[in-house]
């Protein structure tokens, strides 16, 4: 099973983590994005101030390194392709802030500056979904970190406006600096109106829970 999941993840690479793949909504729109998986507990709230940009706050607890990033995140929709039955997007993102140690005691590390850069893309119809993302974090003394995520999805039925949309997805990741360099997750996405929920489990048995809400 683990080999199969990793095989799927290789196929999916370099597709991506879609819970963050649509970081720009519509002018004057607010979005809350929560992501919880084996790597992180992350919250990102942003305000879309024009068709191509959103700016927000990002909190990200790194579960492996036991530290937290808090800072600002700017997202840019670099290009969108609208077609009669599909849409594709290319996004860039940049974050700047501080990292704080979550350990206490004499080994507690000082705060440090951090930044990250990311790029992601997606293509979807109402039936199929593909996304890809790459991200690099510079965390000062806390260590640098890169990740490549990919995702493939299929909807078992095509739902109309306001109905419950359901997706079966597989996400693969490659983390060069991590001990577990390759991995995969199986994900169920439920999508209705302004809310999107994802529940899943990775090949190591770790749960995944993501939530997006647009206002």
């Amino acid at each position, binding site marked *: 099973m683990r080999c199969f999941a990793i095989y799927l993840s290789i196929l999916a690479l370099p597709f991506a983590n879609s819970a963050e793949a649509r970081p720009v909504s519509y002018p004057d729109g607010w979005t809350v994005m929560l992501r919880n998986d084996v790597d992180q507990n992350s919250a990102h*709230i942003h305000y879309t101030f024009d068709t191509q940009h959103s700016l927000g706050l990002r909190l990200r607890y790194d579960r492996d390194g036991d530290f937290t990033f808090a800072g600002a995140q700017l997202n840019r929709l670099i290009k969108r392709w609208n077609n009669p039955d599909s849409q594709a997007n290319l996004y860039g993102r940049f974050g700047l802030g501080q990292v704080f140690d979550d350990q206490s005691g004499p080994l507690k590390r000082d705060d440090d500056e951090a930044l990250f850069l990311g790029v992601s893309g997606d293509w979807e119809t109402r039936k199929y979904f593909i996304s890809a993302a790459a991200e690099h974090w510079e965390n000062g003394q806390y260590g640098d970190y890169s990740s490549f995520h990919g995702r493939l999805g299929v909807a078992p039925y095509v739902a109309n*406006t306001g109905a419950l949309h359901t997706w079966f997805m597989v996400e693969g990741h490659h983390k060069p600096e991590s001990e577990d360099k390759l991995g995969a997750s199986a994900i169920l996405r439920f*999508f209705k109106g302004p809310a999107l929920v994802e529940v899943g489990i990775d090949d190591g048995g770790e749960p995944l829970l993501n939530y997006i809400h647009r206002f």
Partner: protein
Amino acid sequence: MKLLKALMMAACLTAAPATVLAKDKKMNGPEVVEIADISVGLSGLVCDFCSLALNKTFKKRDEVRGTYVDLDTKILSVALTADNTLANDVIIKLVKKAGYSVTSISRKDGSDSYTAPEKS
């Protein structure tokens, strides 16, 4: 520090102004299709977030009484308030602002229809 982070998280989750959370008073159900003055054909529609973006963008206009986006037909139906209209160039700009593309515009009274040029 954990208190600071908790406070920041709370601030994040409550930062959206009350105005955007207020209940939308305009029509947004499929009943709008029956009374629509304008039907706008769209491309790029793939999910409910698309519908939301178009509804929110159009409903900011005083001329608009209600909107409904049908993902199956790819049509945005717009019902106008009395004695108002929306010109084609305004509709095209609003759709673009929401992030999508217009393929056609037709009106209940048959006037001023529009078809987007074919992409070469």
